[in-house]
């Protein structure tokens, strides 16, 4: 299996390491022909505005939407969640895939960034979650299920073949969310 990581900006190398640890060959996706060879795609953490602009100029937006429509599993963490959301408060959606409304940097500035253990439905032991200037999910559509919450906010959500998390499992060497998404391929 080949696991794509959108490699425009952000911590794509950490995601590639997680995939490699799971025995999935990582592929850095920068152009549409990179995307054509992967079985799943991860959108990493980074700056959502930067990733959005680079994805548009690389001609990746429509190809990614087409692949997900035909069932390709996809995981988005933090900025990846924002990039995949249908509605972004005070900003423009990019891929418009997951029926949620997100608010960027909603926990405050970097001094308010934190880590914590969280329980995720379908995963046995607590997941170490690193929240870096993380978004908050304000609204969840009917076809989206919440897999985890923290302090009353949804932090892991699933809509068919798409999974989004507002935190960074990859920063804590956590592999189980990736494994869960790869299981859909």
């Amino acid at each position, binding site marked *: 299996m080949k696991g794509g990581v959108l*490699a*425009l*900006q*952000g*911590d*794509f*190398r*950490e995601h590639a390491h997680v995939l490699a640890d799971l025995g999935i060959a990582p592929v850095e996706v*920068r152009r549409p022909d990179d995307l054509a060879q992967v079985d799943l795609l991860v959108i990493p*953490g*980074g*700056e959502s*505005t*930067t990733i959005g*602009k*680079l994805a548009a*100029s690389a001609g990746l937006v429509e190809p990614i939407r087409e692949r997900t429509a035909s069932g390709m599993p996809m995981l988005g963490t*933090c*900025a990846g969640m924002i990039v995949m959301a249908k509605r972004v408060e*005070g*900003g423009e959606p990019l891929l418009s895939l997951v029926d949620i409304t997100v608010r*960027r*940097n909603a926990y*405050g*500035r*970097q*001094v*308010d*960034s*934190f*880590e*914590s*253990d*969280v329980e995720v439905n379908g995963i046995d032991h*607590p997941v170490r979650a*690193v929240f*870096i*200037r993380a978004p908050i999910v304000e609204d969840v559509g009917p076809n989206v299920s919440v897999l985890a919450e*923290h302090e009353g906010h949804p932090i892991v959500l699933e809509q068919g073949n798409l999974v989004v998390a507002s935190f*960074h499992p990859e*920063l*804590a060497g956590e592999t189980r969310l990736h494994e869960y998404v790869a299981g859909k391929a």
Partner: protein
Amino acid sequence: MERETGTFRVKSGLAEMLKGGVIMDVTNAEQAKIAEDAGACAVMALERVPADIRRDGGVARMADVAKIEEIMGAVTVPVMAKARIGHFAEAQILQSVGVDYVDESEVLTPADEEHHIDKWAFTVPFVCGARDLGEALRRLAEGAAMIRTKGEAGTGNVVEAVRHQRAMLRQMGWLQTLRPEQYVSAAKELGAPVELVRDVAAAGKLPVVNFAAGGLATPADAALMMQLGVDGVFVGSGIFKSEDPGVRARAIVEATTHFNDPDVLAKVSKGLGEPMHGLDIKELGEEGLLQVRGW
């Protein structure tokens, strides 16, 4: 469950999110918007860009808080700001204001010629400049969560950033050839803690993100540094001292992502207008060098 703030993972984690990106110096809200619209992954809030600090002389200090707040209010990307080397009170103020990263920077006039800031004492993360591996590891020992080359700021000349990154690569390569009994003498030679020397010898890289900074002015400069193994780039005077800042900023962002793709680099290097005027390092003399500030 309990929130843990200010852990090293949280501090270095933000730097991980900046990788593959361009951090741009800005001096007001309008420039900050131009930078964000061009795809900057963060901005550095300043009163004057390094080229102007160099020209004006005098003592360069932390920017006015109103200036920093103006910039923080204008963009959603992270905002960094500079404190003088050793000036922990400036850093305390920046943390209180809520900047996302503090740059303990040689571009400002040092406040302490013997000591850098104890960065472990802060919740806000710090980035520090380094000319070689020893200097980088000394800053990490003080709690820095991100490293950048010092280069020579405000010159539009990439040669010093190249020199510093080459030194880093050479010394990391050297550490990997050592046997364990040589680590202590290597630590002595580098002037760095042996624990960090051992970590670098094992991993073959720094334990934190390392950006290029100091003299980058073109998309090709960004691609050069990325190919030399840095994780991302700072561009200071190079953008807003050029003829068309928005176009140049956008081109440098594309070049930093597609640094290994000469076709993209050629495309984005077309029709950028005049770059900033550059300086030959040799003409600056020892007195004119910013990189020798700090140790």
